[in-house]
């Protein structure tokens, strides 16, 4: 079941060829024809994938948007409006494009969230064998490479961090007023906050809080719509993706802090003002990295779940959208407890990241920098997988003696320092 199936790869290659052939042609033609062609290509893609039942979630191509901000992909002619290179746009599914069209301004937030997620992933895995490297997605490949084809821990983290990135960035853009369709929904202010039950129990009048604090709700809902497109939650892999996407969002939501302050005569609490504070994305990344280390392996549920899923693929009726989040994954080891809403789940053990493996898109740890004194994963022993390492001495020019000038400037000197660099063979 988990082994590679030849027809799928063939079909994928065929799709890539198609993309490559179509892309230049579409640029030279008028928009209506282009649209038709793209529609055709996308429908073709869907049919290819649906027919061959890929294990990889299909809604993940949008990650390519993270690179939209880079030169060549973003048109400089219209600042403010994010004009996507057609190739970037093509990575979006039809529903995602509709969402982007209906919510002007959201696309740049999604792009920001995705690149934030990539940067955070690379920060969290800087000193590990798998360092969350990305590759050029333009050739129709996945941004993170073929590793996402496997349902391993790394994939789980990628899904969670990207989903969290979108939630965070959209919520923030919403608060800053960058998304037109996300207005401060003042009509719901009098809705009781979460603490209401505890407060009511204490027989205290529930304080209402207002302001534009519901942005996280928009971010959360938008992320569900946008990120989870295509993950219908029928196969186990799709369930895994959905679970991890939800976990990423849950981390953003629960790390969000409500800050309040009392005002009144001599420190009493007559007037209470509250506001929500989004967590820094670093803290979300840290929390997800913790969950990565303690991720739970889940297993294929009983076959009775697989069978209808196959039938439903062609059937017209779909799983209601809300129901697709209602599932419970079983732990691989029956003695472990079932994964919670914030836990990351994976299906299969991670491949070794030591050696280059083109089939899985693993570059290997050759040439990676390592720390010769550390005994952890960043140490040369583990990082280089026992192959040994090369030590070089080089001079680097870097900023040093930085001082903070009030307010708000950091001035640094340039120092030339000698550095010993160890790189894996």
């Amino acid at each position, binding site marked *: 079941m988990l082994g590679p199936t030849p027809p799928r790869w063939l079909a994928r290659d065929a799709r890539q060829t198609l993309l490559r052939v179509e892309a230049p042609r579409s640029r030279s033609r008028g928009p209506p024809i282009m649209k038709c062609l793209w529609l055709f290509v996308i429908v073709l893609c869907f049919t290819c994938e649906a027919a061959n039942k890929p294990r990889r979630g299909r809604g993940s191509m949008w990650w390519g948007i993270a690179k939209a901000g880079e030169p060549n992909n973003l048109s400089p002619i219209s600042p403010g409006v994010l004009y996507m290179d057609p190739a970037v746009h093509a990575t979006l599914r039809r529903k995602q494009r509709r969402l982007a069209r209906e919510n002007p301004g959201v696309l740049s937030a999604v792009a920001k969230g995705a690149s934030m997620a990539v940067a955070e992933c690379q920060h969290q895995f800087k000193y590990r064998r798998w360092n969350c490297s990305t590759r050029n997605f333009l050739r129709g490949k996945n941004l993170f490479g073929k590793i996402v084809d496997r349902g391993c821990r790394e994939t789980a983290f990628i899904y969670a961090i990207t989903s969290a990135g979108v939630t965070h960035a959209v919520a*923030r853009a919403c*608060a*800053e007023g960058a998304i037109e369709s996300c207005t*401060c929904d003042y009509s719901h202010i009098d809705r009781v906050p979460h603490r209401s039950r505890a407060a009511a129990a*204490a*027989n*205290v*009048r529930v304080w209402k*809080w*207002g*302001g*534009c*604090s519901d942005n996280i709700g928009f971010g959360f809902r938008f992320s569900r719509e946008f990120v989870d497109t295509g993950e219908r939650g029928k196969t186990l892999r799709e369930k895994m993706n959905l679970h991890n996407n939800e976990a990423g969002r849950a981390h953003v939501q629960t790390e969000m802090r409500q*800050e*309040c*302050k*009392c*005002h*009144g*005569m*001599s*420190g*009493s*609490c*007559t*007037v*209470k*003002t*509250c*506001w*929500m*504070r*989004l967590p*820094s994305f670093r803290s979300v990344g840290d929390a997800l990295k913790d969950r990565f280390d303690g991720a739970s392996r889940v297993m294929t549920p009983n076959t009775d779940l697989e069978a209808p899923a196959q039938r439903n693929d062609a059937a017209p009726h779909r799983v209601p959208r809300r129901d697709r989040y209602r599932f419970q994954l079983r732990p691989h080891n029956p003695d472990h407890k079932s994964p919670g809403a914030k836990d990351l789940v994976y299906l299969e053990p991670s491949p070794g990241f030591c050696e280059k493996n083109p089939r899985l898109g693993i570059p290997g740890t050759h040439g990676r920098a390592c720390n010769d004194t550390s005994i952890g994963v960043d140490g040369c022993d583990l990082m280089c997988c026992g192959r040994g390492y090369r030590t070089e001495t080089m001079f680097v020019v870097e900023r040093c003696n930085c001082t903070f000038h009030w*307010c*708000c*400037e*950091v001035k640094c000197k340039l120092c030339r320092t000698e550095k010993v660099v160890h790189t894996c063979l």
Partner: protein
Amino acid sequence: MDEDEEYNETAWTYITLCGEPTLYEGLRFAKDLIIANVILRLVIQFVPLPHNVRHSLCLVIGSFLLYHNIGPPFIWTVGLTTSAYILIILISFVTKKWRGLLMSISVIAFLLLCELYVLNPKMWQQIRGIQMIAAMKIISVAFELDRDLFKRMLNPVEFGGYILCPANCILGPWISFHTYSQYLEVKFLTRRWIKLIVVNLSISMLFLFLSNCIVPWYIDDEMPKWLVAYRDAQAFRMSHYFVSSMSIVSMLSAGFGLTNDCHSEVHVTKPLFIELPRSLVQVVIYWNIPMHQWLKNYVFKSCQPYGQFTAILVTYAVSSLLHGLNFQFSAVLLSIGTFSYVEYNLRHKVALALEVCCLANPCGKQCDHKYKKNTMLAIITNTFFSIITVIHLAYLGVMFEASFSVQESGYSYFHTINKWENLNYFSHGFAAFLYVIYLMM
């Protein structure tokens, strides 16, 4: 370069995320206050009403406003008002001389019992300020009855209207019954009136924004602990300025505290005199001017026959008990008392010794010191004492910075001690050191 941009961006995001809901909530609170008070003023202004009906109008609108703001616990304020009135009547049958004292004791006892046995801490924190204002008004009425300042006994409507008047039942400031009664007359209102309300509302919103968003942000947590203490104390002071200017807004919108040519005559606090203080004595005076007057008028003056020291001690005890049975307030108030006592005496001696104008209170016109206030020596000594005061203020105000759950349900003994321990009890030690110098001079 990238880091700088990132820094600015997150700061701006933080400010917008904090500022918008803060201002929104502040204005929402102000809206109810202003609407209730403007209705009161407009009815008084345009409907000719007999005296008692005006008071009852005050009573009704005030009760509505209270209920709208704090919900069911408003029954405690109404209860306090009613029982206090009944008690005054009853005591009047027995004695005509000790009503002030007896009422003070019973009102404070009522507040303490409420705090200890009846109300949960959160609810108490919520209504404490309101109860305090009501208690001050009741005690002032009782003392004025003793001093024969009323032609006859107040009727219930007058009394209730005074205590529950929407203009000052929530945030204060305290005003005497006679001022209140005078303010209820028809006023000459011009466009200036609206301008005054808007200006004061903007000032209060500015202080709210500073207190919630700017002050906690502009000094980072990693800075030296005294800077952090200064910041926390300043955030608390800003919150006090917000409450004070909001109370002016509520007074003005009811048309209270206006002179005949439509200028504001209510002064609650003077932020400039507290942020750049001359002395701790001045801070105590300008922190809450009406409260200061109340303490001086009804507590200090009543106790003066029994000696200066007793009077000071009783004043301190009453102001502390009015805040409830709380270690933090007692400790802070007692510290302020001792610090300002040491400061007052030390400055007196220094002024005599150096013949320089550096008393705790600025010299009046008849300054008989050799070095007047604009001489170099005077400026240097006064700056020195100002800096000491700023340090004292940071040390005392840091108490009121706490996690929200603490703010909401009251400060504990350990909270207070922890905060001071963190600063090594510096101000206490320093005050003791100054006292030793004073004794040696």
